[in-house]
């Protein structure tokens, strides 16, 4: 008899636990629903952020090449200026013997001015080294983002939640809207400075 009572009490205890569980679930459900709604609202922002990061990352190698181009261009220009300065200096030396004594001082002063222009051209090396440093930072950021993208790919292929998340992420905005945003981003980041994709000869061909 006593054993039966214990069993009944155990069953009642289990029923009470189940009831409590349902009660807790009922209390938690609105919170979970609210949380999911919040995530849903958040999805367009995450999509936008994701799109911006991907597009920006794709442009990093181009930015890096542009920096290298700048260094090359300023190096060439500086060499041209140095060539001209050397030529002027040589010509001054050759005319020095033909000028009167009272003009010798003028020639010496011009030579000094030439030397000062030359020393000022050290800026090319100094700025080039700073740009190279910035370039290395860009390359590091690019490699870091590539690693993150790779990890994100692994996440969506190995977990169901990851697959759902990526699916929702991609599906939360319609394709036309995505294309429009991509185009806007591309326009913002496009390089409007003259590029060397086409030669002057090629351009002239169009105008013949």
């Amino acid at each position, binding site marked *: 008899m006593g054993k039966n009572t214990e069993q009944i009490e155990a069953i009642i205890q289990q029923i009470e636990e189940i009831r409590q569980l349902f009660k807790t679930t009922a209390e938690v459900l609105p919170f979970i629903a609210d949380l999911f709604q919040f995530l849903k609202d958040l999805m367009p922002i995450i999509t936008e952020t994701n799109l911006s990061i991907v597009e920006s990352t794709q442009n990093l190698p181009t930015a890096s090449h542009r920096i290298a181009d700048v260094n090359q261009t300023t190096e060439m220009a*500086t060499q041209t200026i*140095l060539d001209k300065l050397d030529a002027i200096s040589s010509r001054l030396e050759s005319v020095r013997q033909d000028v009167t004594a009272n003009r010798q001082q003028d020639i010496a002063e011009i030579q000094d001015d030439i030397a000062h222009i030359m*020393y000022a051209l050290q800026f090319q090396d100094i700025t080039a080294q700073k740009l190279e440093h910035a370039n290395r930072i860009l390359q590091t950021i690019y490699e870091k983002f590539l690693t993150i993208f790779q990890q994100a790919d692994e996440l969506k292929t190995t977990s169901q939640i990851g697959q759902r998340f990526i699916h929702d992420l991609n599906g939360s905005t319609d394709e036309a809207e995505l294309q429009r945003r991509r185009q806007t981003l591309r326009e913002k980041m496009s390089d409007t400075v003259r590029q060397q994709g086409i030669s002057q000869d090629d351009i002239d061909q169009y105008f013949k």
Partner: protein
Amino acid sequence: MSKKILFVDDSPTMRRIIRNTLNRIGYEDLIEAEHGMDALEKLNGQSVDLIITDWNMPEMSGEELIKVLRGDANYKDIPVLMITTRGMKDDVMTALALGVNGYVVKPFTPEVIKKKITELIG
């Protein structure tokens, strides 16, 4: 002046400016190199009176070059003047610890270079 100077810099602009500066202050016997490895190849056992080197260079940096020079009986006593964009105190301390004899931060003036060279090789 018959002093022989080796100068090392990866920037063609800087090499021209240094060469011109040295010529203007009277040094004509010059060897130039693009980086540390190039400098060692051009030295090839011969002695020079002074080595002027940049710090940041491809292939072999100025820092690595000085380590090699200071560890080689043929070159360990050659004065080294470093001309670099690196102007932090830690950089100067590192150079000093490496055994650099003079340190100039770019951009330099001919007066500064002349003074440093005079201090090092008279």
